[in-house]
């Protein structure tokens, strides 16, 4: 029974995502044009070899801005998922492992958070702390905790009475060690696909918040606030919206493929 580690979805997803991330990393150090350099003589130019994705209303190079803004979006999404998954896993582990009153209390709080539509909750937090990159991460991170907590709680609870966990308890392993070393690796087949879904939701959430003007604020570029820019020029420069939107779509599609690939790999093992 050799584990088959790769499949079509995983390969395609990793290749696409890898390429996009490489481009965005590149955007941190080098872009064809300075992303904020304006050129009044080159407003709303269509895509050409000089400006791959064309230019916006200030004559800024859209491709350069997509690279930089994509990087911002990517960082926000990663940080958001990291916060949501880390705290969510912790809450899930504690509630799932101990059960009882701790479980009841934390899960009711969780339900209360879940009861808000997530974008509303994010809006509420932003209205308290104000917009900006870091606050978006904070707001979305909090919004993402409950779903991770719920998924992980089920995982940890189902492992609680498995024989090898009982054995670990009998050999005197501490609770923290049992949760982190003995249980956590066995939740990966659920956690990893959940991470990919969470990442995609975070990309979309950042985009929608910045689109609404409560996320990343200019002059910082993000795919979301670029889309907001593009919308006002939909008639004059349709490529702006299309190409920026395509970037979001590709990013989400690539990570979605990875998620599908991970799930398929686990199905094949069974």
């Amino acid at each position: 029974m050799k584990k088959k580690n790769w499949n079509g979805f995983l390969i395609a997803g990793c290749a696409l995502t890898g390429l996009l991330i490489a481009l965005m990393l590149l955007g941190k150090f080098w872009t064809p044009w300075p992303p904020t350099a304006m050129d009044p003589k080159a407003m709303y130019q269509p895509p050409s070899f000089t400006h791959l994705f064309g230019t916006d209303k200030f004559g800024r190079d859209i491709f350069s801005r997509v690279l930089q803004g994509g990087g911002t979006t990517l960082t926000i999404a990663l940080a958001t998922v990291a916060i949501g998954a880390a705290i969510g896993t912790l809450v899930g582990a504690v509630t799932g492992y101990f059960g009882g009153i701790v479980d009841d209390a934390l899960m009711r709080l969780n339900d209360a958070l879940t009861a808000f539509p997530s974008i509303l909750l994010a809006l509420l937090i932003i209205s308290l702390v104000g917009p900006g990159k870091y606050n978006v991460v904070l707001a979305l991170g909090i919004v993402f905790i409950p779903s991770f907590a719920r998924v992980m709680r089920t995982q940890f609870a189902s492992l609680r009475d498995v024989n090898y966990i009982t054995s670990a308890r009998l050999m005197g392993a501490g609770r923290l060690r049992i949760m982190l070393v003995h249980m956590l690796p066995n939740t990966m087949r659920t956690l990893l696909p959940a991470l990919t879904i969470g990442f995609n939701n975070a990309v979309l959430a950042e985009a929608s918040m910045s689109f609404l003007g409560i996320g990343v604020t200019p002059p910082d570029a993000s795919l979301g606030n670029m889309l907001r820019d593009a919308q006002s020029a939909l008639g004059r420069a349709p490529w702006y919206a299309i190409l920026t939107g395509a970037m979001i779509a590709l990013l989400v599609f690539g990570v979605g493929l990875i998620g599908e690939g991970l799930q398929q790999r686990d199905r094949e093992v069974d």
Partner: protein
Amino acid sequence: MNERKEPHPTDLVLEVQHVNGGYRKGGLLGRGGYKQILFDVDFQVRHGQIVGLVGESGSGKSTLAKLILGLLSPESGKIVHHTPRPQIIFQDPYSSLNPAYDVEWILEEPLRVYGKYDRAERKQRVRDILARVELDERFLSCRPDELSGGQRQRVSIAAALIRRPRFLIADEPVSALDVTVQAQVLRLMRTLREELDLSYLFISHDLNVVYQICDRVLVLKGGVIVEQGDVETVFRNPQHAYTKRLLAAAE
């Protein structure tokens, strides 16, 4: 491994004294109700003995195992251990080994948790115990899902024995195995008892297996020990009607 025979202050390994036990069900402050499973269970395991515990599903065998292991507290009565913490071998070899790790990690873990051994000592003891359970060293890098049922059960036994306990609870250890593998594992368990000076509580529903390996036998029905005694005596001359029925069915 541990060749020297430690002096035993008493000949006893385990005393279960008039134990009543069961489960408390949910509810705040444990007031959700109590379901008693075991009634006045009283027996002893002597040094070097293999004591069989037979009974059908729902008789309370697993509950008794949990009580002895300390995973559950008795309602009344006392459980006295005269050895360090007992270990357990489970029936299902598929869920008794952590699928996320390889055999070497699984065997080393009890020693790591114990904390008194350095890396070299741990590796040495892992190799020793592996030889004891008659497994080749090439299995060290295998994950549980690459092993057969019999091999897994050998790894489970090794993991239970690596800290050199003196008393093992074997909960249906061969029930999930093919009959030829079953015979091998039973033989191994006997050999280990001699070599490592062990005592077992051997839980099984298979009376023929119990007859093969045990010195004494306890018959549990509805949470009550209806009969106990020397295996030969009980099997040749059962007293309780239930024991008779059980023996007739397994003939």
